[in-house]
C-alpha cells in the first residue's frame, strides 16, 4: 500500500502495524492531538512509512463480535498531513480499508462502522462509500471490498 507525496507525486510504500498501549507513550503530542492512551478500544493500528517507521496515522477499533461488526472509535491523521500543506494523501483511506480487511478476516463480512461528526456525514458517504445506520455510518461486502481494492493495492511499484 502506498501514500502519495503531494509535492513530488511519488508513491511511498507504507504498512499498517498493530501497536500495544505501552508504545503509545512515545507518540508525539505535536503530531497527534487526541489522547490515545485514554481510548476505550480493543485494537490500535498505525500506518507507518515502511522505510523508516515514520507514523502517518492512527486508528482505534472496537471488535463487536456478537454483531459481526468492527467500530472505528478513533482515526487520526498526523498533523503534518492535515490541511493545505500536508505531505501525503490517502492516509485515512488506507486505515479505513485496513479495518474492512480485518472485518473480512474476522468473519464479519467486511462490516465496519463509525460515528462521524454531523458535518462530515456526506464526506464519508461520498469519499468512502459509507451508508447510514442511524447515527452510525457503516459499510460491508462490495463497498468494503471496493475500498480495499482502492487503497490497499500492492501491485505497482
Amino acid at each position: 500500500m502506498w501514500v502519495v507525496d503531494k509535492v513530488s507525486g511519488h508513491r511511498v510504500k507504507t504498512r499498517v502495524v498493530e501497536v500495544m498501549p505501552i508504545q503509545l507513550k512515545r507518540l508525539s503530542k505535536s503530531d497527534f492531538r487526541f489522547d490515545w492512551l485514554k481510548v476505550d478500544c480493543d485494537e490500535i493500528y498505525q500506518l507507518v512509512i515502511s522505510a523508516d517507521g515514520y507514523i502517518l496515522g492512527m486508528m482505534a477499533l472496537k471488535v463487536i463480535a456478537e454483531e459481526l461488526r468492527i467500530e472505528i472509535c478513533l482515526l487520526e491523521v498526523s498533523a503534518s498531513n492535515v490541511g493545505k500543506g500536508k505531505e501525503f494523501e490517502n492516509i485515512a483511506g488506507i486505515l479505513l480499508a485496513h479495518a474492512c480487511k480485518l472485518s473480512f478476516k474476522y468473519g464479519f463480512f467486511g462490516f465496519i462502522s463509525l460515528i462521524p461528526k454531523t458535518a462530515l456525514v456526506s464526506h464519508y458517504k461520498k469519499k468512502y462509500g459509507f451508508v447510514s445506520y442511524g447515527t452510525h455510518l457503516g459499510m460491508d461486502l462490495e463497498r468494503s471490498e471496493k475500498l480495499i481494492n482502492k487503497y490497499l493495492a500492492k501491485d505497482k511499484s
Partner: protein
Amino acid sequence: MASTKKEIGVAPHGLSAAAKAKADEVIKIRRFKRLSEMDQSKRLYATLLALKYRIEDYLAHDIYDQSYSFGEFLKEYTSILNLKRKELAQDLHIHETKFSRLVTNREDPNLEILLRIEAHSGDILQATLLYQLLSRKVMAHLKADTKMKKQQRKLVKNKVVV
C-alpha cells in the same frame, strides 16, 4: 475548518452515554436485519475474500509457515465450499488420488490446476496468488535442504571460478 476536520479522521463521538446506547441499538437492529437478508452466495463470496486476504497477509511477511501450504489451502477451500474432496476433485477435473496427494502436500499442483482453481473460485483466488503460495514453499525448501544441495553440487562440472 470543515476541510481540516475531514482530513483528521474520526474524532471521539461526543455523544452522551444514553445517546450512544441508542445509536448502538439502532445499528444492532439494522445489522441483524442485513445479516438475515444476506444470501448464501454473498456469505460464500465474503468467506472466500477472507481466505484471499489471509493468504495475501501471509505472503507479505518473509516467512514460511506450513499451515499456509498449498495442501492446507485446498483443505480450507473444500471446507468453505462445503464439498467432499471427491466432489471438488471432479469439479476441477483432477483424479481423486492426485487430489489427495495435493491435499497432503505429497505433490505440488501444476499451473493448469492453479488456473482451474482460479476459475472455480469465480476469480477470487487468482492463480498468481496461489503460485506465490507455492513459491514460498519452494523457496524455503531451496534454502533449507542442504542434503539435496550437496548432492546436486556433486553432479556439476566446470564450475565458474570467481
